[in-house]
Every structure is written in C-alpha cells, then in structure tokens.
C-alpha cells in the first residue's frame, strides 16, 4: 500500500525529494516496514535515521503520526490505520537544537 512520509529538511536534500514523499510499503504498516521500504528506495538514507547494525532510532530523531509520538514504541507496533490509508503522513522529525 502507498503511504506518505515526511523527512526532515537535511534528509530531503540528501535523498533529493520534496517535503513529502509517497512510498509503497507492504503490510503491516509499522515503523520497521516503513523504514525498510524507505531505505530500500533511498539507500543514501541508510544509517541516517536508524543506526547501522542495531537498527536503533538515532537519538535526535523522533517518529510521529496522527499527533502521537511513536518514537518509544517497539518498531513492529502497527501504526494507525490513517497512516496505512495515507490519510496521515508518517513524520520523521529532527530534534530542534541550536548550533
């Protein structure tokens, strides 16, 4: 199924995509299935959202959807149906910090 993903600006530039991208993802729609599909389509993003090897979320990034923070949820937890139906995007958000 086709879902919507929003990347932080630096990663948009790296992947050469716009503010929002569409991605074909096999069900079930979870953090892991989305990120697996995202990295397969845009290999330059590997290691920038999840660490190589451990596949842990990088500490200054968080995952949101439907006004909820899913960052601390297990990566195989199903995301809301509104994400699976592309009514709502899956948001990958960088921490706002100075420097």
């Amino acid at each position: 199924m086709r879902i919507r993903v929003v990347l932080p600006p630096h990663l948009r530039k790296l992947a050469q995509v716009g503010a929002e991208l569409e991605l074909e993802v096999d069900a079930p729609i979870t953090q892991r299935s989305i990120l697996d599909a995202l990295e397969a389509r845009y290999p330059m993003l590997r290691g920038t959202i999840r660490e190589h090897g451990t596949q842990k979320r990088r500490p200054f990034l968080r995952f949101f959807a439907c006004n909820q923070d899913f960052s601390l949820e297990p990566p195989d937890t199903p995301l809301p149906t509104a994400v699976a139906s592309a009514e709502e995007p899956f948001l990958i958000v960088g921490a706002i910090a100075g420097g």
Partner: protein
Amino acid sequence: MSGVRVLVGTRKGAFILTSDGKRKQWNVTGPHFGGWEIYHLKGSPVDPNRLYASQSSGWFGQLIQRSNDGGETWQPMGNTFSYAGVPGTHQWYDGTPHPWEFKRVWHLEPSLTDPETVYAGVEDAAIFRSTDGGTNWEELPGLREHGSGPHWQPGAGGMCLHTILIDPSDHQRMFIAISAAGAFRTDDGCRSWKPINRGLRSETMPDPAAEVGHCVHRIAMHPSRPGVLFMQKHWDVMRSDDAGDSWQEVSGNLPTDFGFVIDVHAHEPETIYVVPIKSDSEHYPPDGRLRVYRSKTGGNEWEPLTNGLPQRDCYVNVLRDAMAVDSLDSCGVYFGTTGGQVYGSNDAGESWAPIVRDLPAVLSVEVQTLP
C-alpha cells in the same frame, strides 16, 4: 596554466576555492552539504577530479560523499563503519573502561596509486579502508587491536584518529596519529602497528616514558624524505629523523608550546610551518596576534610571519587539519580559522591575504595543485 583547488571543510558545509597559478583571484563555490559538519575532504593524487568528503551530523550520523568531477557534483557512498569483531573498551576521561563506539570520520587519505582506494581515520580511533571508491569500508583492525588499545584515552576533541601519512617510497609503511594515544607506524600495510612515541614529553603523565597516552595533534612529512617527521603535539613541536623511532624537541623560540597544525614547504624539506596557540584552555593566538611561524632549519629557529595577518584583537583557533601547501613555485601555504577565514600565501609565507573571511568555523583545509 596550472592552478590550485583549495578544499575547505567547515562546521556548516564544504567550500571549494579555485585560482590560477598566480593565486590572486579566487572563485568560491559552496556551501556543499550546507548545514552538515564537513570534517575533511581530500582529492586523489592519481585523479585530481576524484574527491572524497566526510559529512556528518549529530542528528543523522556519518556520510561519505564522492565527486568524480572536482567537486561540481557529489554522490553519497557507503557509510557503514563497523569495527571488526568485538571492539572491547578503551579508557574514558576518568580512566574507567569505555566501549569502543564509532562517532565520525575525521580524516580521509586517498591512496597514492589507486583512486578507488581511500583510508579513513575515525573516532573512536581506528583506521578503515575502502578499495571500491568509498562504497564499502573495512576496518584494518591491527591498529585498534594493538595491545595498548585498552589504555588509549580521548583528548578534549574525542578519541580521534586524525592523521594518516603514506610513505611515497614504500606504500606498506604508513604513519597515523591519535589524540590522545600518540603516533603509530606500520611497515606491513596495516597488518601490525608499532607505537612511535619515544622522546615525547607530556606533562602530568605519571610515566614519562609511557608507550602511549601522548596528545599528538598533527604529523607532517616531506614526500622526498619520508623518514623525517615533524609533529605538533599538545606540548612542543617535535622532529624525528628515524621514521618515528625517536623524537627530539625543536620548539626553540616559539612563543607557546601548543598548537594544532604543522606542514612542510613543498620544495624545501627543512622548511616547516606552525601556528602557535595559547593553552591549556584559551586556544587562541598569544596576545591576539595571528602569526604563522616558519623554520627554515627543520625546527629550533623560528621566524614569525605576520604580513597580512591580523596583529591585534584576533582570537581564533587553527585546527589540526586546517593547513596545507601547494606545489607551485613559489610554494603556496594555506590555513583556515575557527573564525571562518581562509588565509593564503603565494610566496611561501612572506605575505598573506584572506581568500574568504566569513565562512563557518573551518575544520580542514586541503590543497590540490592542478596541471
């Protein structure tokens, strides 16, 4: 007419400065990778249009970029830097064991013979190699697995492998330096390494003859004389005439015993350059005067070079990878500051002029002399 290309890594992107052989008029492009830290970028000596760049961020981790057209376009390459085996621990600042963790690539050193081969010096300290143009990276674990590894400790900037020198006369021989473990040499193509720190003096170290633990900031060599090494360390400027087996202090009349950069004139192997910095905590030029010091005698006797450099109210730093020379005649010397200036001299340091004044803090400067 020949020219130069100056590759500048900064806290917020990379910049490329180009000029003809006169080195008076400059063209500036960038920022490339705007907003990312570019610790280092360097070109292949075999193919000057092949460039490698280390791009990193606290948010998104490490990337490696490659250009095949002298920096006009770039492609992200492989960014998996996995230590071989179980990496174990080194010492933390307080002396407790701390697990080895990859943080970033500090330095990229392309092979002298093959544009597809490039070495990476990383934090936490290790050396990696790619033989396919940066697509895949493999640790050369003989260094990290040297028996002294568990005793290595980070310097203030982290436990970084920041210097890689390849002996042009024997490619099996390489020199590296780690803050704050010291300098090491391999004579067998990175399979085994030997600490080369005899003669270094580091204040407050309980054992002045310790094999490792010295805060080496930078090593330089002249390609025609690879057995002679020059070192700027946390304390003192040092010289070795036996490929690092022993070191002698050559600080002479320098105004401080601290600094980061050191480099050698392209045509005069006994002419070396440093930028003295005040320490231990200030890390800016003494008296607010930015001075390059040059020795034409391989150390000990130094002269300040000030023409064109700010001689009042200057409180920038010049970081360890931020000086380079070109090989034109006369030799060009370049350095970048944490204030965002890149200064160049087209007459071996007699006079200086800013090429750019207002970049982000400069982390590294490399120069390519183009045909």
